[in-house]
């Protein structure tokens, strides 16, 4: 058994800073839940977050709030001043995670005697460094897309020639898939990689096999120090691979997977989470071939994410709250299920309803030419979620909630305008924010 960190008296929580695309209110929610869980355990809490327009910076949430920029330098100074004995990195999105990695590299945690609570820096590195990730996936017997890391445009071209076009370019340590793109030929690849290398703090990009029309499935997993592991939710993206999950319509639970496929991915996600060594909450994304049981793991987010906030609301399972307790050293069976009050937190919610999340874009707020095509880089600025007993009801409610002037999925002005089959096919192949109405 791993040592429990119940001796923690003072803990630092890093927020996610300002609201930007791909990093919005979901992290206020997760940070607030975390603070609540820590307080319950009598832990003195310190929060770093300059965003005053959040719940977590309100009075009585944290014992002390630093309205300071979420950067490694600032957090280092706060650590020196406050001398916390623990730090939580999983509740402030990619920003908090990146700060944690940088501070660990500088040796700050070791020097100041700060324990990283929950998922370790080593585990975070495995999920962020593509080569370490590849090795971990091989160890867990989970396939990943054919790919390699490139440090220059020439590297990228060589890899793409081996993997075969089209390829997708991803950047390490980037939120919302920033700098990512799909290249169908060498000249497109050159352009994307040049920009992506500039964006990446590690000057590293990943060139990988593009899984354009595969199903995109996400699992939200919880694991404690004792290795108890549960799946809180499985989400299916209505939009296939190639469109950022933040820009996808997402449905919970999965709708098109057989038991065999579901369990295949469920078992794989548990193997992955164990081999990476996650403690707390994590999100794992898979691509599944729509015509066979072939699948690949795409990425692991070792933290609360947009999807975990969705999963939390969709199932009623307080993911961030429980994750914070796990970080302190509790195990799942000794925590209780906050909804029923009588059963254990070590269970998997069984829904008798369907949940649909629809993103909201605000392209019309930009004057002139805006690229409205959806791809691997997130463009939506918010989202709505609806719960219903049928898919039709759920999507209808969600579209109304969007407040974009649509009365629903159908029956809107212009819906009856005739469109040629070719036009329709094109708009499905190259979706925009209007795709659900096409």
């Amino acid at each position: 058994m791993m040592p429990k960190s119940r001796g923690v008296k003072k803990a630092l929580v890093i927020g996610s800073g300002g609201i930007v695309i791909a990093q919005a209110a979901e992290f206020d929610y997760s940070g607030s839940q975390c603070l609540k869980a820590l307080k319950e355990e009598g832990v003195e809490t310190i929060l770093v977050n300059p965003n005053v327009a959040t719940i977590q910076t309100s009075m009585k949430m944290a014992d002390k709030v630093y309205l300071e920029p979420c950067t490694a330098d600032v957090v280092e100074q706060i650590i020196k001043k406050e001398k916390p004995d623990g730090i939580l990195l999983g509740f402030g999105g990619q920003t908090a995670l990146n700060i944690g990695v940088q501070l660990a590299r500088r040796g700050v945690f070791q020097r100041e005697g700060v324990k990283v609570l929950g998922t370790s820096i080593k585990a975070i590195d495995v999920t962020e460094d593509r080569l370490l990730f590849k090795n971990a996936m091989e160890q867990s017997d989970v396939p990943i897309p054919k790919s390699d890391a490139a440090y220059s445009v020439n590297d990228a071209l060589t890899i793409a020639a081996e993997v075969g076009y089209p390829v997708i370019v991803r950047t390490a340590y980037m939120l919302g898939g920033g700098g990512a793109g799909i290249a169908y030929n060498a000249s497109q690849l050159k352009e994307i990689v040049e920009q992506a290398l500039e964006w990446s703090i590690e000057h590293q990009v990943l060139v990988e096999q593009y899984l354009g029309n595969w199903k995109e499935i996400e699992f939200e997993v919880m694991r404690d120090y004792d290795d108890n592991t549960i799946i809180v939710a499985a989400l299916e993206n209505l939009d296939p691979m190639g469109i950022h999950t933040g820009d996808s319509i997402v449905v919970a639970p999965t709708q098109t997977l057989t038991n065999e496929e579901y369990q295949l991915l469920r078992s794989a996600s548990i193997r992955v989470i164990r081999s990476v060594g996650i403690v707390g909450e994590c999100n794992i994304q898979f691509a599944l071939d729509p015509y066979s049981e072939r699948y690949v793991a795409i990425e692991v987010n070792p933290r609360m994410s947009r999807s975990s906030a969705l999963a939390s609301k969709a199932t009623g399972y307080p993911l961030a709250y429980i994750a914070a307790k796990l970080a302190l050293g509790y195990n799942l069976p000794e925590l209780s299920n906050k909804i029923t009050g009588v059963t254990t937190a070590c269970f998997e919610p069984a829904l008798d309803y369907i949940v649909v999340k629809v993103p909201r874009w605000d392209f019309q707020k930009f004057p002139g030419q805006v690229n409205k095509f959806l791809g691997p880089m997130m463009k939506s600025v918010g989202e709505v979620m609806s719960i219903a007993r049928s898919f039709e009801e759920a999507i209808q409610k969600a579209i109304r909630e969007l407040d974009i002037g649509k009365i629903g999925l159908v029956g809107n002005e212009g819906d009856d305008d005739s469109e040629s089959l070719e036009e329709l096919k094109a708009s499905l192949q190259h979706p925009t924010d209007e795709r659900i109405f096409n």
Partner: protein
Amino acid sequence: MASKERIREAEKEAILVLEDGTAVKGIGFGSLNKTHGEVVFNTGMVGYTEALTDPSYHGQILIQTYPLIGNYGVSRRAFESDAPKVRGYVIHELCRNPSHWSMELTLDEWLEQSGIPGIEGVDTRMLTKKIRVNGTLLGLLVVREKGDLPNLEELKREVQQIPDPNQRTLAYEVATTHVKKYDATSDRTVVVVDCGVKSSIIKNIVERGFTAIQVPPTTSAAAILGMEPEAVILSNGPGDPKRCREVIETTSVLIQERIPVLGICLGSQIIGLSLTGDTYKLKFGHRGQNHPCLDVQTGRCYITSQNHGYVLDERTLEESGLRVTLTNANDGTVEGIEHKTLPVRAVQFHPEASPGPFDQNVYFDQFFADLLKNSWRAV
């Protein structure tokens, strides 16, 4: 619930009447048929094909709490036996335009061919709550051509007359009547006493290199011993375990002969009964894929697949020589037992999953590893 318009347009009508007087009308699917049985609910969100073909549902009308069923059609790959074993199927909404690469036919077509009636467009949440409060209820399900539904008052009278299927020996009705052999590469043999075995249990045996001999539940201990098995597996199955008197007697002989015995679901109850323990009926059973089980020694918790209405009474196990190894983290009921001195162990859940999580498939690994090492012998 289905809109009045949908019911009006439907070709088949259906009605479900429960013994407490509850009656719900809906859209019919599957077979034009009339059936009765014990009405139970399952909370799994995937795996309807596996559930419908699970022989442990023999004699029961199954409600699915997840509201959208049939999305990926039906494929034989998912069968746990040759055909659907439920008496009737109650769902919120049937997918009539399923799509999946493995689909051979739609759920509607399959149930129609198999003579199983189904009702959709009903408030399954209301029905489930009713069962959670009152316990499992007997029910009557009728599917007819539109306009042909029988008189409701007659059905309400009729439902009072239907016999409780648990008064029958359901396991014997659904089990094999002759010996079947499933060969593996080695000549090492495990006998499966079939009380309604799921094919995944057989698969798990053969996959681990053992030949499986599936025998009828009334097979004598002498006949089983004559097959020279290295171990005997007592399968899952439907109904009241106390009615399986022959299996209980056989099991006590096998245990006395120090043959390693593994029980699964009903099999675990039979082991308890053969060693002076007692069973009782749960209010509404455990049927789903998310049941947490605690290892009483390590405190570890596992998510398991379950389908049972009866359970061992822990208080009756004191004299049995058995100890409880696993308990349900939600209601504390017995989930695993082992004998203190003899090679006997059992689980109330389904390590073969199908449907459900494979987290406890390691239970089979451990069992066969112990057999191969010959380490699992009387202490």
